[in-house]
């Protein structure tokens, strides 16, 4: 086993150790907040360095997962687990770390900073395990294991704690996990070999037609239970609207991406013919859900809901891109997700700042940015980057994905483009409202601007996005 393979396991262990340290932090109220955030920052930065190290070692021309590491878990029945990494999973992992780093300062405002930070680290550890999983068992373990920290995070920080949404959130996701569990057990029984069942080999299984149909149906339902398309859209919409903390908002909205990532890993472009009907049905449902969510985002006045709607529309676009019968745009999807997650995280952090200030001063949203120049600049920059201005890797990579979608099915491409325009319009409309100075009276109370430290921190991220305009890997030294 070479050093890069050890680093893969370290990527899962480092945040988990951070979780244990943060959980056992005992001190006064003030120092505890400081301690747990420092622990989290240290764990996240350690992982970013490890990821960067892995990036420099990766061979971009090689297909499939690299640095494959296998362990035998049990030998009767034989169950092996395997981990590996490629540039697609690495880009998503890196963006998740940056997202957490950006939103971490907001843990200080939370009612339970210790639990919030420690559970975020636990979830990060599970997410890393999920992104590095190369076989069906480790994939299932981490796919499901992130549910409990997510459930507690949502319940502790949102207004949802007394509602039934929180139960629905768990139950919908748990049903998906249970279905996936049955499917992997069935696959493991049908596979007579004692070798590891890699995710990429699942599509190559040749089974009787009816079984194939059920197994692929199960995989689709399990993974789509995470993506907010009908009939699974309800939980995440309700939760996203009610979650107040940027860390939790971002972590919960990463769950749909885990569904998309899972579909990419199961390699559905090579699905057997019996299951290909399911793909067509899925495309229809996905595009209808996308349109509806974009429309609701446009008419909804809540900024958080608009962000959620924007995220969902893009997530479904990535999903449909991943389902295309080609591997060529996989890297484009990875680069796009990298920029997309960072942009949304910064927008969410700025929106949270505006929300807290609004609550503190009891102000309405009209023209609220006019007297906070730093906040206004960053908000405008990241909104424009989000809606598709050529300011980040989102621009060119989305263009490539959309062009492939158009060439695959013109009507599908058209509907996706309309949904994206509508959801972008809702963000622009919100920006317009925030900058509309018609209602501002001279001498009226205005919100506090963001600190210079935060401004420069987020500004550097903006610059990083701009210089990684075409290919983030080149900029980051891969």
């Amino acid at each position, binding site marked *: 086993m070479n050093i890069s393979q050890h680093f893969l396991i370290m990527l899962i262990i480092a945040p988990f150790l951070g979780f244990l340290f943060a959980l056992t932090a005992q001190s006064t109220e003030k120092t505890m907040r400081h301690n747990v955030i420092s622990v989290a920052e240290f764990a996240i930065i350690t992982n970013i360095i490890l990821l960067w190290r892995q990036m420099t070692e990766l061979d971009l021309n090689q297909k499939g997962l690299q640095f494959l590491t296998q362990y035998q878990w049990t*030998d009767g029945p034989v169950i092996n687990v395997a981990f590996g990494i490629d540039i697609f999973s690495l880009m998503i992992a890196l963006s998740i770390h940056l997202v957490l780093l950006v939103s971490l300062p907001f843990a200080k405002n939370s009612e339970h900073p210790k639990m919030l930070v420690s559970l975020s680290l636990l979830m990060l550890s599970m997410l890393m395990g999920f992104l590095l999983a190369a076989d069906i068992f480790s994939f299932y373990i981490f796919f499901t*294991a992130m549910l409990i920290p997510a459930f507690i995070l949502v319940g502790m920080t949102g207004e949802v704690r007394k509602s039934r949404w929180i139960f629905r959130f768990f139950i919908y996701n748990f049903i998906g996990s249970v279905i996936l569990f049955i499917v992997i057990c069935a696959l493991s029984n049908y596979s007579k070999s004692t070798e590891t069942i890699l995710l990429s080999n699942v599509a190559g299984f040749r089974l009787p037609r009816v079984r194939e149909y059920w197994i692929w149906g199960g995989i689709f339902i399990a993974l789509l239970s995470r993506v907010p398309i009908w009939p699974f859209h309800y939980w995440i919409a309700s939760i996203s609207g009610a979650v107040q903390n940027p860390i939790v908002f971002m972590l919960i909205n990463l769950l749909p991406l885990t569904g998309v990532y899972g579909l990419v890993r199961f390699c559905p472009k090579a699905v057997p013919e019996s299951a290909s009907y399911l793909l067509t049905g899925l495309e229809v449902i996905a595009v209808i859900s996308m349109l509806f969510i974009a429309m609701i985002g446009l008419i909804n006045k809540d900024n958080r809901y608009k962000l959620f709607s924007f995220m969902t529309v893009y997530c479904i676009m990535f999903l449909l891109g991943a389902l295309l019968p080609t591997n060529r745009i996989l890297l484009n999807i990875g680069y796009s997700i990298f920029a997309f997650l960072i942009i949304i995280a910064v927008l969410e952090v700025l929106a949270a700042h505006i929300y807290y200030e609004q609550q503190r001063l009891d102000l309405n949203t009209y023209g609220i940015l006019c007297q906070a120049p730093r906040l206004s600049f960053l908000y405008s920059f990241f909104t424009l980057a989000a809606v598709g201005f050529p300011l980040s890797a989102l621009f060119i990579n989305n263009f490539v994905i959309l062009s492939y979608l158009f060439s695959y099915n013109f009507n599908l491409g058209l509907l996706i483009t309309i949904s994206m325009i509508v959801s972008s319009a809702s963000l622009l409309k919100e920006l317009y409202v925030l900058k509309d100075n018609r209602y501002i009276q001279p001498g009226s109370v205005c919100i506090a601007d963001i600190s210079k430290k935060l401004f420069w921190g987020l500004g550097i991220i903006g610059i990083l996005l701009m210089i990684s305009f075409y290919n983030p890997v080149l900029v980051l030294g891969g």
Partner: protein
Amino acid sequence: MLVKYVSLFPEAILMAMLISIALVHIFRQAQTPKTFATISKICMFLSLILCIIFYNIGINGDWYINTTYTTFFKGLMLLGALLTGSLASKWFLSQNYSSHKYYFCIGFMVLSFCVSISAQNLILMAGAMLVSVLGSSYLLMMNREVTEQKISKLCYIQDSIIFMLLMGIGVSVIVWHSKEWSYSGIIAYYKKVPPQTEDIIASCLILSGIMSIIGAAPFHLQAVHTAKYNILPVVVFMEIIPVITGVAILVTLFHTVFVAMNEPLSTMMKLCGCLSVLMGAIGAGSTLNIRKIYQNVGLFNIGIMLILFSYLTVQDIQVGLIYFLIYLFSIFGIFSCFYGLCSHGEYINNLDDLAGINETKPYIAAALLIFSISLLGIPPLVGLLGNLYMTKLLIAHQSIKMLGFIFFMLVVLSHGLLRIFKTIYFEKKKINFDRADKGVYFSLFLNILIIIITMIDPQFLIDDIEDIIHSFL
């Protein structure tokens, strides 16, 4: 020759424990609750050690035997009794309540259970079980109570006695027909003569007696109801120790003695298993009493074990025992947590009392979460392993409908447990808790360590279970 009788030392020490407790109660004036707890601890520990030392030595005959299989269950039971007894001493100290009845009863029950596990004879096994019911009746009646509680306990005792009598009738019929009372004789008889309808009914009666001890549906109703009224040490003991004995005897009878009748018995076990899964999953979501919630979770898991044991291959027994062990560790962990949740000397009983314990008792709250997740089979905890083997086995048996039913009920059950997580983590603190005993933390730490080690390297568990089954078959 002498060494065969030396192998009875564990039982002899338990007998000595009963005599010591009785003598101390009669003659010693200063009887603190700790006195009896200490006697119990020493004797149980010695008994456990000797049980392990003489693990394969027994009076080889038609009456009594020690094998790896019996030692495994006896060891588990003695360890469980030792730990529950140790944790219970705090309760008696805090309540300033005489503990001699409790320790005498658990000693008496453990002794009778040891005899019934090692018995190679239907009459000895049934006799020991019947005697154990006397111990459990005495145990249930040990605290002061109001009329409603008394009636509930009396109903439970009455039910237990009825099931034991039915088991007695079943044993009589089989012994009368086969003219044999030893297990080996009965096996040989049914190899020669195909079982008649009355034999099948008799074996069903015997198994129903065993299932009433385990607390499987539909024989569980009073057991679940009395959990609400009993004192915590009694609930913990009754939830763990009889189940170990019941499983040991059930597997022995079903897979060896009644092997000629296992088709109708398998149907009966599947029915009881499904009913237990159904009642457990629904029951957990429909009560506000935390002990009842976890008792229903236990019922659900017992149902799955019955379903697994009802299949007839060696792998089924192996998977059933792995599932059983995982369940046992988790449920013991849950009840250990209850010992750490005491407010003004009273152990909590209601779901609302758990509100906000993540602030006041963060480690106990975390432990409760870990054990509950393990019971649900959610990764990355060891419950996943039980679910994994169970699912693979049911798929191999083509029991897809059964699998669908179990997982549907698991989702229903998860709703019941989510209410506990919600109360612990999302609600504001309502009551203050007393300082928890160090023993509780030690027990929880040990339990969590076992769960983590088993999850990381489950092979040792699988290998051990394999050895045990080989000795049994």
